[in-house]
C-alpha cells in the first residue's frame, strides 16, 4: 500500500481499482495507473495527505486513497 510507504520510498503500482471512481479517473488523467512508478515525497502529519511523485510531477492524495493503492516496493 502507498499509505504504508515512508518518504523516499519507491514503488510500482500493481492495483488501483479499489480507489474511488473519481480519484481513479483523476490519477489516470495525470498518468498514474497500474504499472507506473511512484516515489513518496512526503507524508503529512496526523493522517494528512501524501505527496507522491510520478514522471516528474508531484501529486497530493489523501491517506485513505493511498491506503487502497497496492504497490510493489522497488
Amino acid at each position, binding site marked *: 500500500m502507498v499509505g504504508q510507504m515512508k518518504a523516499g520510498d519507491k514503488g510500482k503500482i500493481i492495483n488501483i481499482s479499489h480507489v474511488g471512481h*473519481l480519484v481513479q479517473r483523476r*490519477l489516470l488523467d495525470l498518468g498514474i495507473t497500474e504499472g507506473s512508478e511512484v516515489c513518496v515525497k512526503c507524508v503529512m502529519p496526523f493522517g494528512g*495527505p501524501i505527496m507522491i511523485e510520478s514522471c516528474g510531477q508531484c501529486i497530493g492524495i489523501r491517506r485513505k486513497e493511498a491506503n487502497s493503492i497496492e504497490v510493489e516496493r522497488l
Partner: protein
Amino acid sequence: MEVALIGNPNTGKTSLFNNLTGSYEYVGNWSGVTVEKKVGMFKNNSGRLIDLPGVYTLNPLSKDEGVVTSFFLNEHVDRLLNILDASQLERNLHLTIQLLEFGKPALIGLNMIDVANQRGIQINVGKLSELLGVPVVPVVARSGKGCEQLENSISTAPQLINQRNSVYYGKEIEEAVIKLASKLENKTTHSPRWLALQLFEGNQYIKTYIGKLIAQTEVEALMEELEKKILVKEDVKTLSHLIYQKRKVVIGKILAEAVKKEKTVIPLSEQIDSLVTNRFIGMPIFLLVMYFMFMLTFDWLGTPLAKGMNALLTGPITDGIENLLTVFGASVFIHDLIIHGLVAGVGGVLVFVPQIFILFFFISLLEDSGYMARVALVMDRIMESVGLNGKAFIPMMIGFGCNVPGVMAARTIETPRERLLTILLTPLMSCSARLPVYALFVGAFFASQKAAVVLSLYVLGIVVALLLAKIFSTTLLKSETSLFVI
C-alpha cells in the same frame, strides 16, 4: 476565423493568450483560473482566439472541465491551438490525440521548452511535428518568445485536415466506431469517430448529445456489446482503460522517437517545495507567511502609507480645492458639497487604498508562485476534519482579497457538496472591503494593538466558517465522497 486555445492546466495558456492577443488578463497558477470563456483578437487581426479552461482530457470530471466539452459540441471553431508543456509531454499528448480525433485543423504550441531543457529533456520539434502530422511551434509563453511565429503559422497554415488516424484501438473498437458512424451519418457535423470514441470513454456530455440524434437504447446496446467483447479478449477492467492504454502505447512510441532524456538535476524549486510541504514545519511556515503579510499590510508598511495619504488629502488637496472654490466664488452650498461631501467622503475611502493594494499584492504573489497549491496540501487534513477539502482553502484565501473571485475559484472543486459548502463559507472570510471598517474600529478602540486585533478578527471569521462547515457537513449536506487530488 475562430481559433480555440486548449491545453492541460498550468501549461501557460493564459500567458500565451495575453501574448497573442495583446490584451491584459489575469495569470495564475491554480487550475481553473480561466473559469470563463475568454475571447480576444489576434494582434494581426487574423481572427479571434478563444481561451478554454485547462483540462487533462475531453471527458470532464468537474463543471469547469465540462465547459470545454460543451464548447466542442455546441460551438463553431475553425482551428485548434493546442498548447503543450514540454516537460510533461506524455501526459499532455493524451489530450492532443483526442483533439486530433476531433478532426479540425490543429496547431501545437510547445511551451516551456526552457524548463524541459533544464530538466535534461531534449525534444526534436521537427520529428514530433512529423509524427503527429500537425505543425509544432516551440514557444516560451512567459517571455513571448516564438509567439510571432506561432501567430503566423495560425494564419498561414493550410486548411489541412489530418485524415490519418493516429491511434488504432484494436479490431473490436474500430468496428464499433464504424457501426456507430454509419448511424450518425448526415446527422451531425462533428467527426463521428471522435464522437464514438468519446462515448466509449464514458463521456456523459457526448452520450446526451448522441442520445438526441439516435435512440438511447440503440447506443446502450452497442456499448454493452462492445464492452462484453473487450472484457473477454483483453486484459483490462473497463473500456475506457483500454482506450487509455492504446493511446499510451502510441504516445510512448512518439516520445521514444522525438524525445531524448539526459541525467536530471534537482531544481531549486523542488528543494523549496520540500521545505514548505515539510510535515512538521509546513504549517508554521504558512502561519508565519500570513503573519508577515498582515504585519506589512497593517503595521510596517500600510499605516505610514495610510497616514501619508490622509495628510495629503486633508492638507494640500483640501486647501487647493478650497482656494479654487473661493476664486470661482462658489456658493456656500457648493462649497460644503465639495469639501465636506466629496473630498471628505471619497477621501475617507481613498485612505485605505495603500493597505488594500499591499494585501492584494501579497495574495496574488502567493497564488502565482504556486504556494497556494502547496497550502492546499498542507491544510487538507484540517479541512477534511470539518468535511471540506484542501482545495477549499484556495477560494477562502482569495476571499480575503475579495469574496467574488473567491466564490468563483470554488469551481475547481470537483464534488458538488464541497463546492456548495465552500461557496457558502467563503463570504465569512474578511475581504478587503471590510478592511476600512476594521481599521476604523481598531483605530478608535484598540490603538495600541492594531495588527493583533485585526488578525484576531480575521481568525474569528475563519473559526466561524470552520464551525459552520462542520455543522453543515454533518447535518444538511451529508453523503457524497470527497475527492482530493492536486
